[in-house]
């Protein structure tokens, strides 16, 4: 069962990477990052079956960081949208405001 979980996790991570590389909407790219974090969490839980509860504690930390990251990232996206009226990353190509 651990092998299958690792396989699912790898596939989900790859889908997340493909999404980050192919999509242009900043919010969807952000959701793809969340998907990648979820895939890693699945790996942690699968290994916690072999090596004890430390993996599950790591999952809790990853979830906390993901929540913080979502809050800050979405605030950044909102402030970019106020400035440029778009969330399409093709149109956001300057570091200068």
């Amino acid at each position, binding site marked *: *069962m651990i092998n*299958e*979980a690792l*396989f*699912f996790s790898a*596939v*989900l991570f790859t*889908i*997340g990477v*493909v*999404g980050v590389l*192919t*999509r242009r*909407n900043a*919010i*969807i790219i*952000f*959701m*793809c990052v*969340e*998907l990648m974090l*979820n895939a890693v*969490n*699945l790996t942690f*839980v*699968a290994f*916690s*079956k072999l090596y004890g*509860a*430390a993996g*599950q*504690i790591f*999952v*809790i*930390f990853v*979830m*906390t*960081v*993901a*929540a*913080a*990251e*979502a*809050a*800050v990232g*979405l*605030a*950044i*996206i*909102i*402030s970019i*949208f*106020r400035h440029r009226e778009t*969330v399409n990353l093709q149109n956001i190509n300057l570091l200068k405001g």
Partner: protein
Amino acid sequence: MGYFYQINFYIFGLLAIASALAFVTRKSPVAAALWLVNTMFCLSALYIMMDAQFIGAIQVLVYAGAIMVVFLFVVMLLNLGHPSDIADMRGTWGKLIAAGIGVVLLAQILVIQRQRLPRIVPDVEAPRNVITGIAQPLFNEYLLAFEVTSVLLLAAIVGAVLLAKRRG
């Protein structure tokens, strides 16, 4: 490890992958977010099947319940969803399938109400000390990391409010 268990594990894993594929290919951000919620529910089922019941519950509460709601909130705040793609009613096929499932569910409820159900005795003992196994190392070995997490959350709150605030 029962056969039934194995099959369910595969079903939830494949559902998670299918939902993730649907999520990446959707045009509308609202539809994409809802597919991602489905992926997270399937992952939660996988966690529970791998004896991580607490993580499964937290996954539903935090990811599907909180983080994705924030995403949907921002999508709707910025008015990015396409109203035509997420029209309220589906086509004829959607209505037919919905009617079929509704009839089946109603029939099941009626049958259950008629019968007197036997008392169900679980053949598997409910797992105990699920949270203790996580809480013990979390508050002993990883206490410093746990406390640092609270600082991280505080920084995130302050940062989010400051960034999203209107200048003026």
